[in-house]
């Protein structure tokens, strides 16, 4: 199973893409973050939250599919 990830705002600048498909299938958010920090070391410095299917999740949340998104601080309005 591949893992699809959307990046927004500043994070999309760091990854140079708005969306990508990872070959791996991390089983928790924590595992996902480790993979991403290896791929994009600059991410580590940044403040962001993770959403799965549009719900904010914590690092120990299990990943069982769904749409994953990395969200920098919101700045609407």
């Amino acid at each position, binding site marked *: 199973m591949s893992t699809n990830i*959307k990046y*927004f*705002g*500043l994070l999309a600048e760091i990854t140079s893409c708005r969306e990508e498909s990872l070959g791996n299938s991390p089983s928790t958010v924590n595992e996902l973050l480790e993979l991403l920090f290896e791929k994009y070391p600059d991410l580590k410095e940044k403040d962001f939250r993770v*959403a799965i299917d*549009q719900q904010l999740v914590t690092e120990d949340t299990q990943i069982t599919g769904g749409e994953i*998104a990395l*969200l*920098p*601080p*919101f*700045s*609407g*309005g």
Partner: protein
Amino acid sequence: MKDRKPKNVFVEGAISPEFIATSIAKHQSKTSIGAHDIFLGQVRADMVDNKTIKAIEYTAYEEMANNKFHEIREATFGKYELSCMHIYHSLGTVNAGEICLFVFVSSPRRKVVFEALEYVVEEIKANVPVFGREIFEDESHQWKVNT
């Protein structure tokens, strides 16, 4: 307002004064309304390190944002007795001096519109995944942070 499905809050570019006028005019047939309260967010030409912001370019996680706007609407109608509520937010480029957020609440009486409007605006700022890229006059940029 029976329409409680998530709807698209986003508009491309700045929100014009004429758009706001049209929205106000549409409420003149709703003669149980006694008070409207309108919040407008306008892009500021802030100066940072001697450079001036000339525009903000907005992007959003649109599906999540529209769902959040919907949740905020539902929560607000649950807390406050409003006749109607409208929210519009820009996507894309909005120049300094132009309007990027338009929140409009109406009620038979005034007390409730003040409370409801502030609640809605604070909820939007805190909980809706919209991202502002501040563009300086020399085309460099920084990412907006809400305070």
